[in-house]
């Protein structure tokens, strides 16, 4: 059941929402006075842009390309970095061209019946009433709040001017729509906060901004009509109203969109953009395999946490996954190829045998390739990734004046495996501190090469995957995975990252306390995704903008 706001818009034009919204003054009950407003904002991701357009105007709208964009990872998340970024000239340029294209599709004759709430009296002239209705209705969804009367008039003026210059009512609407789509109100998630009467010295998001935060957190898209109505009525400012919306959203299949977006961020999927595994050395790692690997990881997580409603910790030693024929070939396992409706269904649920070495997220090509060199595996990169992305720990950069050459000296008969070569690092006191943290984890994964293919030898020497984790010895990655999932750092990291992802900032001191308490409870009761989302979304602090956080940004 995929919910589509476009359908709601269509309905809203003839039913209640249009009436509610078009008549809604900006300074309604849910909106504090402008004087008290303070705004912060987060750059919309390319995915959120696409999702918003899809949900507002329908899936048939083609979005031809993304704006060239660069992100920055702060506190382990690109979403937190998004609060530091603005839009460069080339990005705005791209968004303007995208907006022109999207607007022309939205206003095309075939879509006018469904996406335009009214008909002009004369298609060759401006119709202020109809233009205003279109602007206020679409604007509500694009800006995630009602437009003020001044704003409606401004965009109406754009429409009038374009109609005057070029002729045609719909050409005028296109101009107004482009104006809205290049506005900061659309390209950024603007969060308005007002004084918090319940906690002097802090500010809280207004109802519309709550709706946005909740929607992008749980569904990675713009708020749907129900959420906007809850914002308009002020229900979102109260516990019951908020809880009702949270419950509905978490029960929706669209929770998967939010889950996928979160894990793509947490697991550093942005590295896929520049992943360059050498296909001359690893011929099985084709572009198709790369795409399948990405999907395998998200599909596995989604199925595990949402469909199976299983504990997050079990992702690390789960034997269940999904494979395509290409992935099965990479992993060296046989899968049945299903036939359905005359075509091949590429994704097949698969469960590894009891003693199979490839288990959990760490045994998937995504993790193994993203944290490898183009032509070689890297225990250090893999170990660092586990520490930083899964355990929320920080590894300092290596010092200067260090000779790494032994790590690479494959010709030295004494150092045939990377374990031998890294021993030199760990014996060097300057390097040992950090490499002792990273390398043992990565060495357990050395049975998988840079592309994720299983192997037992390196340069003819057997690969030793044993190591020690928090004083306990393990023989291979299976045993390490079991130790890892028992480590409370693994789950506290998830809780912290999920919260930070939602707020797009680091937690305040008060929030850290809440996170610690919540984590302790979840560890006892089970780290279940929907439960975690519910607790975070219901936490009043999640919608609070403290002075501390504001200054921290």
């Amino acid at each position, binding site marked *: 059941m995929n919910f589509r706001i476009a359908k709601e818009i269509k309905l809203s034009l003839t039913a209640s929402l249009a009436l509610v919204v078009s008549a809604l003054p900006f300074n309604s009950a849910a909106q504090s006075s402008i004087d008290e*407003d*303070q*705004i*912060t*904002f987060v750059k919309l991701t390319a995915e959120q842009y696409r999702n918003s357009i899809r949900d507002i105007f329908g899936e048939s709208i083609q979005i031809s390309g993304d704006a*060239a*964009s*660069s*992100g*920055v*990872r*702060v506190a382990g998340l690109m979403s937190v970095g998004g609060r*530091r*970024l*603005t*839009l460069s*000239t*080339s*990005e*705005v*340029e791209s968004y*303007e061209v995208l907006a*022109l*294209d999207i607007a*022309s599709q939205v206003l095309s004759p075939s879509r006018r019946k469904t996406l335009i709430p009214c008909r002009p009296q004369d298609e060759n002239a401006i119709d202020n009433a109809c233009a205003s209705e279109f602007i206020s209705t679409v604007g509500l969804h694009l800006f995630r709040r009602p437009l003020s009367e001044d704003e409606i008039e*401004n965009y109406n*003026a*754009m429409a009038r*001017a*374009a109609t005057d*210059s*070029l002729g045609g009512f719909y*050409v005028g609407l*296109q*101009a107004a729509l*482009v*104006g809205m789509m*290049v506005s*900061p*109100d659309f*390209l950024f998630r603007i969060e308005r906060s007002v004084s918090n009467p319940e906690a002097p010295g802090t500010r809280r998001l207004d109802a519309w901004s709550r709706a946005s935060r909740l929607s992008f957190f749980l569904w990675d898209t713009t708020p749907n009509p129900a959420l906007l109505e809850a914002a308009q009525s002020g229900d979102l400012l109260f516990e019951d109203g908020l809880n009702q919306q949270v419950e509905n959203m978490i029960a929706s299949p669209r929770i998967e969109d939010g889950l996928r977006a979160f894990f793509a961020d947490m697991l550093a999927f942005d590295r896929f*953009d*520049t992943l*360059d595994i050498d296909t001359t050395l690893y011929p099985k790692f084709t572009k198709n395999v790369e795409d399948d690997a990405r999907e395998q990881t998200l599909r596995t997580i989604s199925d595990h946490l949402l469909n199976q409603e299983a504990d997050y910790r079990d992702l690390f030693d789960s034997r269940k996954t999904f494979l395509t024929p290409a992935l099965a070939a990479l992993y060296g396992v046989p899968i049945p190829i299903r036939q359905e409706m005359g075509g091949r269904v590429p994704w097949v649920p698969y469960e590894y045998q009891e003693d199979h070495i490839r288990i959990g997220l760490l045994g998937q090509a995504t993790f193994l390739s993203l944290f490898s*060199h*183009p*032509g*070689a595996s890297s225990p250090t990169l893999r170990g660092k990734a586990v520490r930083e992305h899964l355990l929320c720990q920080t590894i*300092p*950069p290596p*010092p*200067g004046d260090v*000779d*790494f*050459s032994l*790590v*690479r*000296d494959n010709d030295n008969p004494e150092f045939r495996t990377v374990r031998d070569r890294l021993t030199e690092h760990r014996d060097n006191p300057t390097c040992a501190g950090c490499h002792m943290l990273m390398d043992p984890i990565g060495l357990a994964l050395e049975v998988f090469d840079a592309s994720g293919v299983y192997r037992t030898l390196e340069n003819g020497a057997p690969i030793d995957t044993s190591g020690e984790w928090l004083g306990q010895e393990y023989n291979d990655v299976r045993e390490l995975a079991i130790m890892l999932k028992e480590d409370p750092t693994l789950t506290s990291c998830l809780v912290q990252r999920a919260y930070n992802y939602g707020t797009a900032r680091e937690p305040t001191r008060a929030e850290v306390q809440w996170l610690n308490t919540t984590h302790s409870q979840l560890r006892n009761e089970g780290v279940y995704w929907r439960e975690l989302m519910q607790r975070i979304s219901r936490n009043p602090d999640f919608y609070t903008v403290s002075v501390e956080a*504001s200054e921290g*940004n």
Partner: protein
Amino acid sequence: MISKNRKFNRRSLLRGAIHGSAVVMGLPILQSFLNDNGTAFADGTELPPCFGSWFFGLGLTPGRWEPEVIGSNYELPEHIAALQPIREKLNIFSGLQVFLDGKVNQNHISGAQGQMTGIVTKSAADYDESFDAIIDKQFGANVRFRTLEVACDGNASSGWTARGKNGKTPCQISPLELYRRIYGEGFIDPNQAEFTPDPEVMVRHSVLSAVTEQRQKLMTTVSSDDRSRLDEYFTSLRDVEQKLAFELERPAPLPACSIPLIGDEEIGTMVAQVQNTHKQFVTLLSHALACGQTRIFHVTLGNAFSTLRLPGEPSAYHALTHEEPIDPELGYQPKCKIIGEQCMGFFVELLQAMDSIQEGEGTLLDRSVVYAFTDHGEARLHSMKSLPVFTAGSAGGRLNTGLHVSAEGDAATRVGFTIQKALGVVSNRWGTESNEVTTPFSEVLA
């Protein structure tokens, strides 16, 4: 797109002003102001200077690129022999360094950051205004694209430019996309006989002008940190507005302008792929400069941890610098030296592309200055000393060329400061802490 089947006249253009906002067009370089060749203004004023920055990662093999002779008449050592064809238009700076002032060396980042921004920050996530943005303000140019940034390794985040402290400017990674951006819709051949402004561009321009007017209202409610980010967004918006304004004016004829041809692209990190991408980019950029589309560009061969690779070599360039043993007989890392020399070959390809565009008696390179910089001196050790730095072109006679400047221990920011001075930036200092400089290289300033 907005339908093109619309009639346009001057009156409708004037009616196009939206919500009372004045539509301000940039001042064109009018044809009547140019001499017969289009190489200079009629009063003898030269065509304006251009600035380019060019980044190559991982430095050069220490002790093998520095000329022995200081000043002019030096011979190029073997390691940078590829630069020979443009030696007379080149300056080499040796002995420079970036100071960390006690901060952790953000390996492969702090060095380039220091040279482009004058500031070394504690966190790699922090980045401030790069000096091309300072030059851009000085130029105040009436060009279609304020700057153009490209990365040759397929990574949009590989660049080193930033307009402020709100994130680095993303690079374009596809030559075909850059081709479309420059020579696609909106490009007006300055040498074509006919010119008719497009009324739809006028409307687009007016729409952006009206959106820009939201700035004041939003700025009153935003926190001080966010104000800078919002301001930068509106500046970007104004850039696009000015781009459209540029497209509405008849451009001045530029005889050197022609539309280049480029072949298929294959983006990747193999040296040959990077070279091909780089070649396509420099062709496009040099023609864009000659066609008056921009005056500032940035090229990066790869990201901070250079991922360039040799065929059949499992380790990328970055890993090689750390892992390749020093050959005891040769005294250096052979593969690293090869890639370093290939990078110099790429640099020459850029300069030759610019030098091949004749503008009157001089060339495009002559009226430009290109600044080449890297992240480390000896990358193997993450050294911040002995950084190889080059400039090429005289910026229209504002810089002397053909010099080897030995500046042992000086802050590398002196080169960027010298370029700023040459291009007219009025400032008596640039950089912070030990990277702050107050004295340009006087022997280089003409």
